[in-house]
């Protein structure tokens, strides 16, 4: 962790339940992401990870507790101002119309444009900077539908970077990417944190990569926080086996815990 600046994103004992649901989607979750923090949220399916992002970004209002961005309640932020601060790469997006990479990344500049104003040279420059930071500048004139999965994800991250945010939020960005592209994406995010001082909140199901690259983890189960802190504190064998209901063996790589799932479903010790 770094100096005591106002955290970019802070959740404080947040509680949320979807209308008509029988139980809370989030119960008493706290989280803090500052500049230069790489914070990963992990947990089994349905543990409330995407809900957490929505509440953190003001798309949903918490029933209890607070969700603040840069010291202000997330739901009170005007949309465009928020987009200048936080870049989001959601799990899914549609591709209704064929577009070039340049055009789709340019959409990230919306928050910086005035209503009737045209795109300015600085907007195009921001697009190229963002693509370069994602090592995707060579794709700029390609049609989006010709990109591979890995290339497309980089372009999406570039779009979020084009917003020139201080905080980057990614929801399962490496799903359906192969090993090379998955590693490449995590390296990219780590690099952005280290070189540009971005704060990052990433939802991921990949425990090992989260442990390797992130500074802090938050483990959720059923909407409740099970453990949070440095990866070594969160990813213990006992915790993982309890939460994920599967026997594992823990290893250490680069000083970070890595879990290896075992084959027998019965209880066994490493």
């Amino acid at each position, binding site marked *: 962790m770094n100096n005591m600046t106002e955290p970019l994103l802070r959740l404080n004992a947040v509680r949320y339940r979807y209308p008509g649901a029988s139980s809370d989607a989030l119960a008493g979750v706290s989280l803090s992401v500052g500049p230069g923090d790489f914070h990963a949220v992990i947990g089994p399916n349905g543990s409330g990870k995407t809900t957490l992002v929505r509440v953190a970004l003001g798309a949903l209002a918490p029933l209890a507790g607070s969700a603040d961005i840069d010291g202000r309640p997330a739901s009170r932020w005007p*949309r465009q101002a928020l987009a200048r601060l936080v870049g*989001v790469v959601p799990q*899914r997006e549609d591709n209704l*119309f064929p577009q070039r990479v340049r055009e789709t990344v340019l959409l990230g500049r919306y928050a910086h444009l005035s209503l009737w104003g045209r795109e300015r040279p600085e907007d195009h420059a921001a697009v190229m900077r963002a693509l370069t930071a994602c090592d995707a500048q060579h794709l700029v004139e390609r049609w989006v539908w010709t990109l591979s999965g890995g290339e497309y994800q980089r372009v999406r991250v570039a779009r979020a970077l084009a*917003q020139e945010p201080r905080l980057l939020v990614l929801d399962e960005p490496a799903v359906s990417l192969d090993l090379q592209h998955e590693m490449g994406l995590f390296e990219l995010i780590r690099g952005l944190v280290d070189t540009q001082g971005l704060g990052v909140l990433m939802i991921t199901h990949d425990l090992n990569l989260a442990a390797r690259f992130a500074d802090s983890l938050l483990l959720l189960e059923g909407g409740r926080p099970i453990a949070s802190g440095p990866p070594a504190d969160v990813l213990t064998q006992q915790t993982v086996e309890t939460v994920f209901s599967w026997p594992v063996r823990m290893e250490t790589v680069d000083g970070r815990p890595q879990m290896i799932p075992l084959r027998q479903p019965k209880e066994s010790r490493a």
Partner: protein
Amino acid sequence: MKWALLVTVAVLALVASVAVGPAAVPLGELLRSDIVWNLRAPRTLLAFLVGGSLGIAGAGLQALVRNPLADPFLLGLSGGAGLGAVLAIALHLSGPWALPLAAFAGALAALALVYRLGLIGGAALDPRILLLGGVAIGAFAAAITTAIVSLADASELRNAFLWLWGGLSSASWDAVLVIVLYAPIPIAVLVAASRPLDLLALGEEPARYLGADVDAVKRRVYLAASLLTAAAVAVSGVIGFVGLVVPHLARLTWGHRHRALLPAAFVGGGALLAIADTMARTVVAPRELPVGVVTALIGVPVFTLLLRRWTIA
């Protein structure tokens, strides 16, 4: 340059529409002719304004519901307008503006109902609900209209269906003035929403995170597109295909960025309807075809060609 070409085509269409018609007016006398000034000129302008309104409304609507097959008349407005018109005739409402005002009121009523449906369950104008609701309300209104027509004993009511088919025969300078005063506001709302509509193509959640006030944009685009369509139906009945086909034609040349697409759809729609109306008036002169028939006859082959392009691409 494509804009120069489009504007040239539009101007030519307007000039041709004024110069050509079943009443043979020699070119030299065009400027002095009563028929040209009092009948053809307002009719040409109205065709342009109505066609343009339908074109831009269609483009906005297709972006809003994220469905390239959306047509302004899927919103239930034509059913509502027809019902209003038939009620006006059945109740013998008098006055030269009774029919358009009643049709407009009917369209607004349908709009309000569909809008209300779109808000059910906090759905905040879910595109699927808008489309389904529009079809349902439109069908419901059409059913009531048919019932009234079959129960009433005025054969005039049967002729109301002819009006519904679409026609610019009631064009007058008054009508042109009304549209000129009315249309700019919804058009401006649509054009102002150009960038948010581009964002919306990624999906509502991504658009929101990029900074668009998605709920407000959806509301505004829906209302603006509907109000334009309601006015078009009120003055000229249901003219199909313009709102559906023109945005696609415009996309072929101008792409999907709405800052260019929306104005192109307006000018293109206006030119198309002016041409269609000229054909409706001259092809079987002295008889006249309903212009909705001509737009369908032009629109269907064009649409088929477009479909082939999509499947090949």
